[in-house]
């Protein structure tokens, strides 16, 4: 259980708006962390600070022992390779077909040969159940399919950790399952994951730890059982009562 990611007193301010107010936390290798919390609580911002897509205002973000906050853009590019990210809005490259989406970064960043990149890509597409769609363009895929391609694309770089920002909340309900299935498989394979989601079922089944974020702080941390069944914090209780009521 080595430390993969370590966050110390992380803050982020947009203008006047203090979005993160001092976050601390550790993600060990092989762990699945699920981050839950109300809208606007800073979950996305936190996730984006982990791979420095967003520059933290203060505090430290260490990845595999290196503090990222002081690194140059070039050095960061090398780090980001190892941290896959999946977005709520999929963000597939709309000017390329599925295969090119998967092979672009390996070829350009890791200088992989076309053939090798393609073989790897097809393996990954099989893993997410979309080998037959390799020539399709993103526009012609359903939301669930796009998100599975996006996961495969991130995996194509062989990352050490995967960050998910509400990967299912833009999906029609019947597509949510197929994406969660892929993520579940990934977790079983031992991938280190940080997942922002509202899918409490998933959190309960897959998470090693659940972090509840509200107002720029991690209000409560614990195992799924601790958080869902015995929440300590008032805001956690309130949030869960609303979300689980349905």
């Amino acid at each position, binding site marked *: 259980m080595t430390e993969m990611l370590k966050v110390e007193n992380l803050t982020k301010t947009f203008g006047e708006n203090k979005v993160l107010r001092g976050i601390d936390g550790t993600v060990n290798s092989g762990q699945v962390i699920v981050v839950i919390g109300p809208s606007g609580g800073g979950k996305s911002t936190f996730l984006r600070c982990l791979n420095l*897509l967003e520059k933290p205002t203060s505090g430290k973000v260490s990845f595999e022992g290196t503090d990222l906050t002081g690194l140059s853009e070039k050095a960061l*590019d090398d780090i980001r*390779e190892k941290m896959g*990210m999946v977005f709520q*809005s999929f*963000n597939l*490259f709309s000017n390329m077909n599925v295969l090119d989406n998967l092979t*672009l*970064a390996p070829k350009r960043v890791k200088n992989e040969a076309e053939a090798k990149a393609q073989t790897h890509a097809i393996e990954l597409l099989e893993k997410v159940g979309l080998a037959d769609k390799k020539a399709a363009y993103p526009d012609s895929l359903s939301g669930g399919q796009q998100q599975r391609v996006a996961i495969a694309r991130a995996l194509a770089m062989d990352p050490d950790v995967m960050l998910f920002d509400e990967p299912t909340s833009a999906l029609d309900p019947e597509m949510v399952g197929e994406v969660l299935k892929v993520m579940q498989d990934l977790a079983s394979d031992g991938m280190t994951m940080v997942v922002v989601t509202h899918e409490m079922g998933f959190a309960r089944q897959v998470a090693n730890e659940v972090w509840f974020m509200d107002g720029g702080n991690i209000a409560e941390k614990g195992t799924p059982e601790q958080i869902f069944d015995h929440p300590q914090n008032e805001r956690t209780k309130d949030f869960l009562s609303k979300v689980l009521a349905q």
Partner: protein
Amino acid sequence: MLRRKNYFKQLLLSLGLVLFAFIGLLGTITPVHAADNSLQRIKQKGVIVMGTSPDYPPYEFITKVNGKNKVVGMDVQVAQQIAKDLGVKLEIKQMDFDSLLVALETHKVDMVLSAMTPTETRKQSVDFSEPYYHARQSIIVRKQDKRLYKNKDSFKGKTVGVQTGSLQQNLANKQMKGTKKKGLTKVTDLILSLETNKIEGIVAEDAVAQAYVANDSRLASIDAGFDLGGDETGTAIAFAKHSDSLVNQVNQSLDKIKAKHLTKQYLASAGKYMATNTQNVSMFHYWTYFAKGIGYTLLITAIAVVIGIILGTLFAMGRLSKRTFIHYPAVWYIEFVRGTPLMIQVMFVYFGVGMLWNNIPAFFAGVVAVALNSAAYVAEIIRGGIDSVPTGQVEAARSLGMSHRDAMQTVVLPQAVKIIWPSLGNEFISLIKESSIVSIIGVTDLIYQLRAVQAATYRGVAPIAVAMIIYFIITFTLSRILNRAERKMQHD
């Protein structure tokens, strides 16, 4: 009007007698140089050669008759009458005005009719016939108004048109004090103003007035009745010295012409040539003019668009750059160009840049101005295209470890190009329209050509309408093609 020199009528009249007496006196002293066989020589040859410099309509000018160049005009008709009366054929030799008298002296030509004024200097080297035409100043009016006006004094309180910088403007300023004057550069614009009731008359040389009147049934002309200070202008035929017998014979023809008022007819038919039968032919007759204009308009636009896209890309990159010494100049350029009219930019390039760089041709200046203008707009289109690629696309690329530059090249720009190309198409279409402004510095685009057709046909509105429809057809067709291409691309 240099050729037909002014001279003092009064002076000549009062001194006429004395002068002749004096010349008579000299005449008795002067030896007779040679026998006068001039008339005889012509009759023997059976042909009389006329020298002329055919660049002075309606006196003499070149026109296309059945596809061939031909010298026509009042002087030619006078010469034809003379040849007919002499019973010989007429041959016309074209030459520079300066060479005409030399040609006479060396007997290359037998007579010169070229709107020539019999000045004293010239009289020293050649003989002159009697003047056969006296230029007068007239006022062109609408035919239905002709009875309203007698002469220049009938226009008190009204507006007359004059050509800017002309003798007539000067005359009108001095001698039509109670009348407002409207100065325009082109006679055709004046005619148009007259026909559209913007002015009540046009002060013009009689020959010009005759030509227009002959050509347009809605017009008439009246004598202006200016006080020309006792001066008059006259046009006479020049012959080699000591051609008295020929001169006398020709003077008889001229007397006949004057008696029958034939010059009036001659001018009318010259006017018809000038107009190349516009009364009855349609605008199709001038399709070469319009075609040339379309060609230039499209050429200017195409070159400007290409340069505009290249420069615009640079400016867009500059504006997107984070380095201030690249960013701000690009911003300033784009904002300044977009904040000022193209018209003034065209003037600025033509005169301002022309100051630094010798001999900048108008076409070049026009293209450069339009291109520089377009560059600013294209830059904004490109920036807009890049901005409209969702930021998620870059973030996805960055999260995969790609550099910003790489992300731009492989992901953002290809998508931006697809987004902006309809806008670039629209920019091209609007440049077709905007490029019309280069006509102000004399680039021969469609607008310029429409003015040329106005000048050639003496019709104002028809060429405007034709050019307008041409513009519309071009822009409409192009935008349909663009739309179709765009839809096809979206389906792909």
